[in-house]
């Protein structure tokens, strides 16, 4: 298991290096490139050339890349040109990452708490109207563009329920400890700050949760259907065990294997949805930074955030594989 983990981590380093080289090379050959980004399209050829030399852009791409890696090792990923012009890319990432983590946590929590029980009930009542309605509902959930749903929630739910529709917190005087606004309030005892942060979280979290919810629901339903057909469930019934024991120990414990994988994959993929959701709710996380970065072509920020997204995604997938081994004795004891 340890060897497997190490091999996967080495693989991750390789993937990150290849990906960063690709991104780096592409950004350099773009028409315009960083020089235009810094000086604007109408700069004089002389000043362009001077800046090109100054930034080392006249050197071969590999030299540039290794220099970039050297700087990156010291935490210097360049300066933002569009998201928060002038701020360092790393600073922007560190500042915004907790927000996205917090949002993702609540989104996946909602998706699990709703998706797993619904999937179980739908499977148990296969073919009933409840099953049919929830299956079609989950298919619609996948068909609705996330950002449109976010706008509808923002426009309809926020005015109907009086929930805030943008930002992470109102401009209240809250102490910052961890950067997780809900947690900070709990630590310092400023409960109104926690509540306020939660109010800001709820709508974007629901919007972000729709797709993972739909996927988790369908996988749970399919997995439970598969397990209900298994011989060992019949054995459990033949032992006269009570329904709760059969459900928990025999059905769910087996059905959880594919569900856990799905939850992991969906957690990793949340960042895609976060780009759209955070933009709609002006929720100042990594997703919003990416959205603005794409729009304004802020390459230093994009480069760092995409590399970070890769690392997070691959690590989450690795954790999924490892947890899979933990819950499935057939893999663990091999």
């Amino acid at each position, binding site marked *: 298991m340890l060897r497997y983990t190490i091999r996967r981590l080495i*693989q*991750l380093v390789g*993937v990150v290096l*290849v*990906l960063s080289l*690709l*991104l780096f090379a*592409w*950004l350099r050959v*773009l*028409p*315009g490139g960083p020089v235009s980004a810094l000086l604007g399209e109408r700069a004089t050829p002389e000043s362009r050339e001077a800046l090109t030399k100054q930034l080392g852009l006249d050197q071969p791409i590999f030299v540039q890349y290794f220099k970039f890696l050297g700087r990156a090792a010291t935490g210097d990923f360049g300066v933002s040109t569009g998201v928060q012009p002038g701020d360092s890319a790393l600073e922007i990432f560190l500042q915004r990452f907790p927000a996205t983590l917090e949002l993702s946590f609540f989104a996946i929590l909602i998706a699990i708490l709703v998706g797993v029980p619904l999937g179980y009930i739908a499977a148990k009542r296969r073919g009933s109207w409840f099953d049919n309605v929830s299956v*079609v509902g989950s*298919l*619609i959930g*996948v*068909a*609705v*563009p*996330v*950002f*449109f749903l976010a*706008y509808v929630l923002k*426009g309809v739910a926020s005015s109907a329920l009086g929930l805030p529709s943008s930002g992470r917190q109102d401009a209240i005087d809250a102490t910052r400890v961890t950067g997780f606004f809900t947690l900070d309030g709990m630590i310092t005892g400023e409960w109104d700050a926690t509540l306020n942060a939660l109010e800001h979280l709820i709508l974007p979290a629901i919007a972000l949760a729709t797709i993972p919810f739909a996927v988790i629901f369908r996988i749970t339903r399919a997995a439970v259907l598969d397990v209900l057909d298994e011989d060992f469930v019949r054995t459990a019934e033949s032992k006269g065990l009570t329904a709760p024991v059969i459900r928990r120990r025999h059905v769910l414990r087996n059905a959880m294997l594919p569900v856990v994988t799905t939850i992991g994959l969906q957690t*990793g*993929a*949340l*960042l*895609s*949805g976060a*780009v*759209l959701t955070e*933009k*709609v709710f002006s929720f100042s996380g990594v997703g919003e930074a*990416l*959205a603005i*970065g*794409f*729009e304004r*072509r802020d390459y230093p920020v*994009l480069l760092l955030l*995409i590399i970070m*997204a*890769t690392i997070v*995604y*691959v690590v989450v997938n690795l954790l999924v594989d490892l947890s899979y081994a933990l819950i499935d004795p057939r893999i663990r004891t091999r």
Partner: protein
Amino acid sequence: MVLGLSAKKEKIDATAGVSLAASAWKRLRRSPVFLTGAVIIGLFILVSLLAPWLAPHNPADPMLIDQVVKARNEIPPSQPGHPLGGDLQGRDFLSRVLVGSQQTLIVGVVATLFGLTGGLILGTLAGALGGWVDSLVMRVVDVMLSLPSLLLAFSIAAMFSRPSQFTVILAVSIVQIPVFARLLRGSMLAQRHSDHVLAATALGVKKGAIVFRHMLPNSLGPVIVQSTLVLATAIIEAAALSFLGLGNPDDRTPEWGQMLGDVQKVFDTHPHLAAWPAICIIIVALGFTLMGETLREALDPKNRR
């Protein structure tokens, strides 16, 4: 004699009726879910083919521009001849929604075909040849799968300094390549050691012929299912690209995703401008998904009872 022959033929047909494709079709034909999806997609294709004749006006013509008052955020309201009114540029909105189906269909189909072709080539090579080709292809696939697919599509689209319909299609299709590649490679690998391929090899059938006549056709089921589902995601992802400003900036020829992408400009004041293309996208994506999911279930040998 003739009678005997026909009786025998019937018996053969009876056994042919249990083949996977045939039994799948038998179940699909009776499935209300599949039929709903098929009807939606049929209507969608019909509308997009007939759009030039269905649309009352030229979707690029700002014929109602004098009713657009930028300062007061006014757009042409519903009126005789223009049941849905006009858009921000004073173009007939109904015509734009109807004609928009064309480009949407093109984006979905072309993106799926690109992704499918790329994945077909990579996956077939990797699965059929194995060895270093397989390793190389899988490393490429690994790198592409090390980012959430939608984020990869955003990143690819952002790499073009001049976005267009083509870059949108390219971004959406490239992220589908590894999915198709994996699907085909897996199926190929599973078949390389299966009895029917061994039998063909033992008979001296050439490798190419085995791949194209035996292995590929057997992988078609899951590929068709995946393609149907990708048609839905491609349309939705194209809309997301437009929303992030990575879509086609030229809006003379309308496309639903592009129309919906402008949602931030119009949602508070004229929500119907976003709602119409959104509803169209949701219905069409649902249609493709319903077909894909029921196809998957019908082609799954596990469900064959």
